């Protein structure tokens, strides 16, 4: 289990760390019991992600995935952001060790949750994803 240079770079200098006090959408996933938890804040204008911040409790891969995922959706439309897969996050990081792939899943999931949070707050139907029907049982 060794991290790619890209993972390490994002882990050591994570982009978009922080909170957005007046966020338009917030998504929190994971469980500290399992060793990782991710919270994503979105600032949305005209269907575009104007700003994004995250806070993550977790391993190097979790932090790097958060950083990369937020970078990848910044400035994108909500549809584009929704379609960001965990695989794309992992690939952008130069790959993740097999046992750490779930960290990229967490990032995808957190973005989906934040977008749906925004949609619900704005009276829109939440979109359905592969995590919709069940709280993703991470590690259990």
């Amino acid at each position, binding site marked *: 289990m060794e991290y790619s240079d890209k993972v390490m770079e994002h882990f050591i200098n994570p982009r978009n760390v922080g909170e957005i006090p007046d966020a338009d959408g917030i998504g929190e996933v994971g469980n500290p019991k*399992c*060793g990782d938890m991710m919270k994503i804040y979105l600032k949305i204008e005209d269907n575009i992600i104007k700003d994004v911040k995250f806070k*993550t409790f977790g391993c190097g891969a979790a932090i790097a995935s958060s950083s990369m995922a937020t970078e990848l959706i910044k400035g994108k439309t909500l549809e584009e952001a929704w379609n960001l897969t965990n695989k794309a996050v992992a690939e952008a990081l130069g790959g993740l060790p097999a046992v750490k792939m779930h960290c990229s899943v967490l990032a995808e999931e957190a973005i989906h949750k934040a977008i749906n949070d925004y949609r619900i707050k704005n009276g829109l139907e939440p979109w359905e994803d592969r995590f919709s029907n069940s709280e993703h049982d991470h590690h259990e």
Partner: protein
Amino acid sequence: MEKRFVYMDHAATTYVKPEVLEAMMPYFTENFGNPSSVYTFSRKSKKAIEEAREKVAKALNALPDEIFFTGGGSEADNWAIKGVAFANRDKGNHIITTKIEHHAVLHACEYLEKIGFEITYLDVDEYGMVNIDELKKAITDRTILITIMFANNEIGTIQPIAEIGKIARERGIIFHTDAVQAVGNVKIDVKEMNIDLLSLAAHKFYGPKGVGALYIRKGVKIDNLIHGGGQEKGKRAGTENLPGIVGLGKAIELATQDIDGHNERIKKLRDRLLNGIMEKIPYTRLNGHPEKRLPGNINVSFKFIEGESLLLLLDQFGICASTGSACSSGSLDPSHVLLAIGLPHEIAHGSLRLTLGDLNTEEDVDYVLSVLPNIVQRLREMSPLYEKFIKGEI
């Protein structure tokens, strides 16, 4: 402070001391003879092994005839446990151990469980201590083996081995202790402590990797784990790891010649570091026993952060350490030891083990103290748990 290399993972493994390596060197290319051979050339090999055996025996107050060299600590543990179990099956099928043993002991026990043995895994208290009354209660007339570690590799807690040995001896039960972390750090007297079997591994006390030993008290019934040639009085087959055994002998001699002095030095450094950590970093708890612990061991949990990311950042500053977080090993649960002492999962994930040893100096300690608080703070500022805590949400 300037970046430096600080190795604080001596419980994982140590470097080989130059004196130890020097003692080993003649046995690779020069005196390489097979100790079992007839010719004069191989006598040096045989003599070297017997000298090493005497050194190990002396360090434990055992007889040389009671020392058997193995390929490491895990082999010694497996041999002790399976060997006693198989050889004494007619007497019973019950084994008592604890929840905080090293995996070499735990998984050997679980294997035996699968094939018909019954294992009692004793609980430990919040400090990782076995309860003697519970041990006594667990004993049945089918109990053939008690295996309880001398000192824990994660939290450093030292068990009341002499007390346990006395109970086992009184009840006629074989007593094995995994002393892989204890040798060189705790004074061991197998006779006085009524220990029947004891495992050790050279690479934990500045000897080479890949060599260990099992002390087997005269008269203990035990099957072989590795059958074959007549080496080690027919109890452990395989051409002897000659340089490794010589290294083990030299290392145990060095490690046990002044345990008090060594401990004083290491403890002083350890306490300076521990006090500094507790002072500078809030929301931190010490894991393991406050006094009855290995001299070089620190195990703390920093709330709101996860251990692997902590290790990676420490590594950026040249500091080598270890954690009980599952995230560092790719396993699903955090350390079984931290769970056994009652830590909630999320706290166990935030654990850091720093194990000091002969490589460390005061400068190392001060360097870690200059780096660690900032790293913890940085990770906390990134942590949604910390955010909730600050906001009073948890």
